C-alpha cells in the first residue's frame, strides 16, 4: 500500500509539471518559416552548453539568449514583439 501511494505521489508531481507546461504555446517549423525576417518576430536561441554547441541546426537570424540573464533581455523588446524561444 505504501509503495502504491509513493508511486501515485511521484506520478502526480511528474504529470503536474506537464500540465503547467501545456499552457505555453508551441510553434511548428512550418509556422515559423514564413515569419522569419519579420520585424515583429524575434527568435531567441536559448539552448545552452552542448545543446547549442554540438547542434548543426542554428536558425538564421536567431539571437542567443540565456535563461540566467532573462532580466536583461526580457525587457529589451517591445510588448508588440513576438518572441519565439528555440530550445532543445
Amino acid at each position, binding site marked *: 500500500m505504501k509503495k502504491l501511494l509513493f508511486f501515485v505521489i511521484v506520478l502526480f508531481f511528474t504529470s503536474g509539471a506537464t500540465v503547467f507546461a501545456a499552457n505555453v504555446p508551441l510553434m511548428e517549423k512550418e509556422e515559423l518559416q514564413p515569419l522569419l525576417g519579420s520585424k515583429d518576430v524575434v527568435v531567441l536561441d536559448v*539552448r*545552452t*552548453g*552542448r*545543446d*547549442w*554547441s*554540438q*547542434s*548543426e*541546426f542554428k536558425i538564421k537570424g536567431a539571437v542567443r539568449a540565456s535563461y540566467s540573464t532573462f532580466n536583461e533581455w526580457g525587457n529589451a523588446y517591445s510588448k508588440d514583439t513576438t518572441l519565439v524561444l528555440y530550445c*532543445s
Partner: protein
Amino acid sequence: MRVSLLSISLALSWMLSPESLILLGKTVGEHGTITLVVLGIAGVVSAICASVIYSPHLSVQGHSGTLLMGQEVHAVVGLSLTLASRVSVTLLASCAMLVTAGFAFNEIFVYWFPNFAFATLLLVGITGVNIVSRGWAQNLQMVCVAIVILGMVSLLLFGLLAGEGGGSESVWQSSDVPFFGAFAGVFLFVGYDLILSDKKGQGVVSAFIALLLALGIYFFWAITSMKYAPLAQLSGSTIPHLIVAKSIVAPMGRMVMGVVIIAGACAAANALFMTTRETLAHLAEEGLFPEWLGKYRRGVLLLIVLAMSICLMMFTGLAGEEVLEVYLHGSLLLWLLHISVRCYSASRNLSREKGSRVVHGFFVSILLFGAFLYFLFWGQSVQVRVEFCFLTLAAAFCFALFWRVCCQKKSICL
C-alpha cells in the same frame, strides 16, 4: 601483433575523438597555414615524451607511471595526479563526447530518436561490453578506431583528389590569441599515455605509430579544411569538422562524419573506461587503492560507479550547462599535468639508470608544464577552472594521503 594493434587504438582514441577534431578545426581557423608547423612541433614534442615515459630502460614500469612518480617525486603526489587526471577525464570527457554522439545521431541519421537516449544507450553498451568481457572491450576499441580512420581517410581522399574546394586562399595567419596554437597542439596528441603495454619497448613503438597516424590525418585534414572552408568560419564554429565534411561532398560527407563522430566518441569513452579500470586495478594490487574496489573481477565495481556517475551527470542536465566545457577543459589540463610530471619522473629515473642527464625529457616536461600553466590561467572562466583543478587535486591528495597513512596499517580500512 594483437597487443600492438590494441595499444595503437588506445593511443589514437583521444587523438581521433570528436573533441580533437573540434580543436583542430579551431586551430586551423585561428592560424591558417601555420597550423601545419604547429602540428609538426606538437607531434615531435609528444613523440619525445612518449619515448621517455615508455623507455624500456626505466627501472619501474607501469600503466600510468604512478609507481614511477611515487619513486621519483612522492608516493602521495603520484597517486593524487593519477586519480585526479584519470577519473576526472573519464567522467567528464565520456559524458561530453557521448552527448555529442547523441546529437550527431539525432540530427544526421534518425531525427525522432532522442539524442540523450542514444547517448545513454551508448554508455550502457560500452559499460556492458567492459563488464562482460575484456576481450570484447578490446575488439570494440579496435573496430571503432578502424571505422574512424576509414571515415577520415575517405573524406580526405575525396577532398584532396576529387573535390574543387571553395574556401578562401590559405594564408600564413597569426592568431589574435598569443601562443594558442603552439600550446593547443599538445592537447591534440595527449592519449599516447593510455597505452596498456606489459612488454618493455612495445609502448614506444605503439605510441610512435599512433602519433604518426594521427599527425598524418591531422596534417591532411588541416589542408582539406583550408581548401573547403573560410578560416573565419572555422574559428567561429563549434562544429568545424562537420562544416568541412559537408563542403567536401554533401550530403554523403555529413553522414560519413556522423559515423566518425559516433565511432570516435565510443572509442574515446571505451579507452578511458579500459585504461582507468586497468590502472586502478593495478594500483589495488600494489596496495595503493582499495582492494575491494579494484580487485573484484579486475575493477568491475569501479566501472559501474563510473558509468552511474556519468549517467547521473547526463540526467541532471550537465551537458546543457556551459560549465561542463570549463570542467572538461580543467580535466584535460590535469591530464597534461599528469603527463608532464610522469615525463619528469621518467627523465629522472633514466638519468640515474643511464648515468647521464636525459635533457630532452626534462625539456619536454617543462614545456608541458608551461602549457598547463598557460591554459590554466588564460582565457575565459579562469576562476571556475582554477577552482575545479584545485578541488579535484585536493580531493585526490586527501584520499591518497589517507590511504597511505591509515589504510596501509590495515587498522582502519577494510
